[in-house]
C-alpha cells in the first residue's frame, strides 16, 4: 500500500473519532436535538471500506453511521449543520444524525430502521448493472441487523443477480442492550454468505489494513462483474448504544477492555514503527482535524434553524 493511502486511512479514522468525540460533547451540552449513536472504537471499518471507493460509488449507512458518511467524503460542515438540524445541513436539517444523505459524496441514505438499508442497496446496485456504469454500492449494517428478514432476502437476490454490492457488517458484538449470544448461535456472520452462494469474509475490523485489503478485493469483484460480497468486520463498541446510555447491562470489565482494540492507536503505532510518519506528523494531523471540526461546529451553530416555511417542502415532487 502506498504512503498516501496509509495517510488517508489514518486521517479518516482520526477525523471520525474526533468528530464523534466532539458530537458527544455538544450533545451532552444539549445543543443537538434527538439522540445520536456514535461509532467510537469502530473507525477502522468505515475508513478501511470507504477508502476503497470512488466518489461515484454509493453507500448506505446506519443509525451509527457518522463515520461511514465522513469516510465517504461528506462535507463536514454540511454534515455538522445537519446533525444540528439547521438549514445549511446536507438534508436541510430535516434528517438529523439518523437519516443523513448526500448526493455528491455518494451517501445514498442512512436509516433508522434496522436492516432496512439492505433491500434499497439492491436497487442502486441493480441500476449500476442496468446502466453498465460500474458503480459499486456498499451497504453497512450491524450484527444485530443480520437477524432481520431483509438481510436474508437481500443477500439471496444479490447473489442470484450477481449485483455489484458489498454488504458490510460492522459487528461490534452488541445490538442495543443485548450481546451476541442472546441473538445468534453462530460465531461469524460472514459464514451466512454460504447460504446464498455468495462470497463471505470475516476480518478483524480494528485492523484497518486488513479491512482495506478485503474491501479492496470485494470492490474489485463487484466492479468487474464478480458479484457481491458479505464482508464482516469484527470491531468493538466503546460507548453505550446511544449517547447517554449508562450501559448498566454490560460487564464493567468489558467496557474497560474494549479500548485495547483501539484501531487508531494500533495503526499509529504501525505508522511510527514502519517509519512511515513521525510524531510531529501525527500531531499535525490532530491540529488540522481539530480546526476542521471547530470550523464545522461554528458553521453549524451559525446556521439558521429551519422555520415553518420548510415544514411542507419536499413531501411530494
Amino acid at each position, binding site marked *: 500500500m502506498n504512503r498516501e493511502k496509509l495517510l488517508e486511512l489514518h486521517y479518516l479514522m482520526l477525523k471520525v473519532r474526533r468528530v464523534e468525540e466532539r458530537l458527544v460533547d455538544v450533545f451532552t451540552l444539549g445543543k443537538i436535538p434527538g439522540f445520536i449513536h456514535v461509532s467510537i472504537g469502530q473507525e477502522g471499518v468505515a475508513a478501511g471500506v470507504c477508502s476503497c471507493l470512488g466518489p461515484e460509488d454509493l453507500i448506505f449507512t446506519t443509525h451509527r453511521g457518522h463515520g461511514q458518511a465522513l469516510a465517504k467524503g461528506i462535507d463536514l460542515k454540511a454534515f455538522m449543520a445537519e446533525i444540528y438540524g439547521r438549514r445549511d445541513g446536507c438534508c436541510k436539517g430535516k434528517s438529523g444524525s439518523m437519516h443523513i444523505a448526500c448526493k455528491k459524496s455518494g451517501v445514498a441514505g442512512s436509516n*433508522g430502521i434496522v436492516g432496512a438499508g439492505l433491500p*434499497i442497496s*439492491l436497487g442502486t446496485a441493480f441500476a449500476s448493472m442496468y446502466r453498465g456504469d460500474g458503480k459499486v454500492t456498499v451497504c453497512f449494517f450491524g450484527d444485530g441487523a443480520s437477524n432481520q428478514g431483509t438481510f436474508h432476502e437481500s443477500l439471496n437476490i444479490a447473489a442470484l443477480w450477481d449485483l455489484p454490492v458489498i454488504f458490510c457488517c460492522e459487528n461490534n458484538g452488541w445490538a442495543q442492550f443485548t450481546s451476541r449470544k442472546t441473538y445468534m448461535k453462530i460465531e461469524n456472520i460472514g459464514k451466512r454468505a454460504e447460504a446464498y452462494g455468495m462470497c463471505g469474509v470475516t476480518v478483524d475490523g480494528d485492523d484497518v489494513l486488513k479491512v482495506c485489503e478485503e474491501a479492496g478485493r470485494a470492490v474489485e469483484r463487484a466492479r468487474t462483474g464478480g458479484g457481491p460480497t458479505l464482508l464482516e468486520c469484527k470491531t468493538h463498541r466503546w460507548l453505550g448504544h446511544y449517547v447517554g446510555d449508562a450501559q448498566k447491562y454490560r460487564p464493567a470489565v468489558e467496557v474497560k477492555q474494549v479500548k485495547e482494540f483501539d484501531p487508531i492507536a494500533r495503526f499509529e503505532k504501525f505508522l511510527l514503527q514502519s517509519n512511515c510518519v513521525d510524531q510531529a506528523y501525527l500531531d499535525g494531523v490532530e491540529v488540522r482535524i481539530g480546526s476542521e471540526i471547530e470550523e464545522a461546529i461554528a458553521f453549524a451553530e451559525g446556521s439558521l434553524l429551519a422555520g415553518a416555511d420548510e415544514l411542507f417542502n419536499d413531501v411530494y415532487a
Partner: protein
Amino acid sequence: MKEIRYIKAIAEALREEMERDENVFVVGEDVGGGGGAFGGTKGLLETFGERRVRDTPISESAIVGIALGAAVRGLRPVAEIMFADFLTVCMDQIVNQLAKTRYMFGGLFDTPVVIRTACGGGLNAGPQHSQCLEAWFAHIPGLKVVSPATPYDVKGLLKSAIRDDNPVLFFENKALYAMKGEIPEEEYLIPIGKADVKRAGSDVTVVAASRMVHESLAAAKTLAEQGIDVEVIDLRTICPLDKETIFASVEKTSKLVVAHEAVKPFGIGAEIAAMVCEEMIEHLDGPVVRVGAPFVPVPFNLEKLYLPNSDDVAGAVRKVMEY
C-alpha cells in the same frame, strides 16, 4: 376506439411506457415467464428481455427496496406485489423508506416508483387474498394512492403513475380484470388527483372507488327509474383527494353517500365524510351515509354476503333522500 379488458389495458400501458422510456422496468414475482399472476405483464419479457423484466424470489421487501434504490439512481421501476394483502410483508419499505425518502433527505432524490397490486374480493380467495387496504396508504404523507375502475382509467392512470416523480400505490381490482371497456387507439393520459363524474345527477352525490363505482352506477340506474337522480363520482385517486369535484357536487345535491369495498370503520369513506362535515356542513342536508364491508375478515365462503353491492348503495341513497 377499441374494446379491451382491464388487465389488457394494464399490459398496454406498461408496454407503451417501456417503449417510450428506457428507464422504465418491471420487477416482481412471476412477472417474466409467468406474465404476472393475473397477466398484467404478459408478453413484456419477450419484447424487453430479462434486463427490463425482472422475476424475483418471493421477497416482497426486497422488491420494494430494489424499486426504491433504482429510483434513487434515476430509473422508473414498476413493481408488482401480487395481492394487496401481501403489502403487509413490505410495509416498512413502503412507509418508512419509499414514502419518506424525499422528505427526510431534504428533497435530494426523486422517487418515481409505481407499486401495482391487486385488491378486493370476488374470487372467494379468503381473508388473506381479498383485502382493500387503501386507507392505510392514504394516511401516509409522501405516497399517492390510485384506484382505477375501468379499462380506460386504468391505462391512462398507470401511464401517469409511471411518469410521476412520487411513489404511487396503484390498486388494481381483481374483480375488474376481466371487465371490457372502450379505449382510444391513440395515446392518452389521465391526471392523478382528479376525480371523474361518471354520471351527472342532481339529487344526491355518490362518491365511490374502484369496483364500487360500477355498483353505484347500477344503483343509480335503478334509482333513476324511481325518480332519484344520482350523481356518481369516481374518485380515481384516493390520495390526494379531489376535494374540488366532491365539494362542487355536494354543493349541488346537498346529499352524500360514500361507497367503497373496504370495511367501513376507519376506511376512506370516513375521510370523505369528515372532510365534508368539516368544511361544508352548511351545504349538507342530512347524514353522510357510508357503504362499506362489514367489520369482519373476508370470509372464504360468505363472500357474497360480505361484499357491498348496488343494493347497499341504493339503500344508502334512499336513506339520505328520506331525511
